[in-house]
């Protein structure tokens, strides 16, 4: 019986070492829950600001948020940019904080080959997406920005997911599907954005917390 336990422990040790060395498993589900909540607040603020009155005028109305811009209220543009930037920065901070807590608790190094790989693979599609969205804005295709950011964020998660929990890959695929759907339905960009960055983060965050954090 004792030998059994020893064999079982050995196999557990092997599995744990394989996981710790190859994957970034300090990522905490709680950071998903909190960044999702932040995204929902951000989306609500954006909704409130853009519904205060007409802030953009186009040569023709396409009700898709595209078409040549005649005039634009820059205070709204700044509000939306700062809103998005704040959500992004606070989410990064929250993600770092909870991952550090988890790493300390589980005795894992936070910064290793695996977390480096995860971040590098995550950031390449993410930066591409950021630039892509700025180009969309440059061309006046504002209505496409929110769904496009979902697609690129999904690709980034899918790319980084190989180095972390499998839930990250599934979250990535969900974001891509949602982004593509958002590109099809007219003028609902913000709603899809709120579902993708808000609701999905909270749902997957809770799932990851239950499965891996406790």
């Amino acid at each position, binding site marked *: 019986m004792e*030998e059994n336990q020893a064999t079982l422990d050995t196999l557990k*040790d092997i599995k744990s*070492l394989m996981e710790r*060395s190859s994957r970034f498993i300090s990522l905490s589900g709680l950071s998903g829950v909190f960044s999702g909540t932040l995204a929902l607040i951000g989306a609500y603020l954006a909704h409130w600001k853009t519904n205060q009155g007409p802030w953009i005028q186009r040569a023709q109305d396409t009700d898709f948020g595209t078409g040549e811009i005649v005039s634009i209220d820059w205070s709204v543009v700044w509000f939306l940019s700062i809103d998005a930037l704040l959500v992004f920065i606070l989410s990064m901070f929250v993600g770092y904080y909870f991952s550090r807590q988890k790493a300390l608790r589980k005795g894992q190094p936070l910064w*290793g080959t695996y977390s480096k790989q995860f971040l590098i693979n995550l950031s390449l599609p993410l930066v591409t997406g950021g630039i892509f969205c700025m180009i969309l804005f440059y061309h006046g295709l504002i209505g496409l920005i929110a769904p496009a950011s979902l697609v690129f964020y999904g690709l980034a998660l899918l790319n980084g997911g190989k180095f972390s929990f499998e839930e990250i890959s599934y979250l990535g695929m969900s974001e891509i599907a949602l982004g593509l759907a958002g590109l099809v339905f007219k003028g609902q960009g913000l709603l899809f954005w709120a579902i993708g960055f808000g609701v999905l983060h909270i749902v997957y965050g809770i799932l990851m917390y239950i499965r891996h954090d406790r």
Partner: protein
Amino acid sequence: MKSIIHQLDKAFENRIRLGLMSILSVNDWVEFNELKTLLEVTDGNLASHISALDKKGYIETRKRFVGKKPNTTFRITDDGREAFSNHINALEMLLKGAI
């Protein structure tokens, strides 16, 4: 029962060697310091286990310079991968047989 025990590889009886193989089996070229942190062992201890596995032909060593710093990394060989997976299979059989 006897036959399963014979399949267990003597080279992996040590916990640190088994840990080394576990890490290398799921990674490509791992640095010495990274192994040290993961396995929580001293330099000398780790080096002696590495050289034992190297002699067996289970792992290979690559020494090179990154800038001015020497950089030593390790990788599992095909033989090592086979031996390690046989060993794990044997462990699992042992467990199944006992239950």
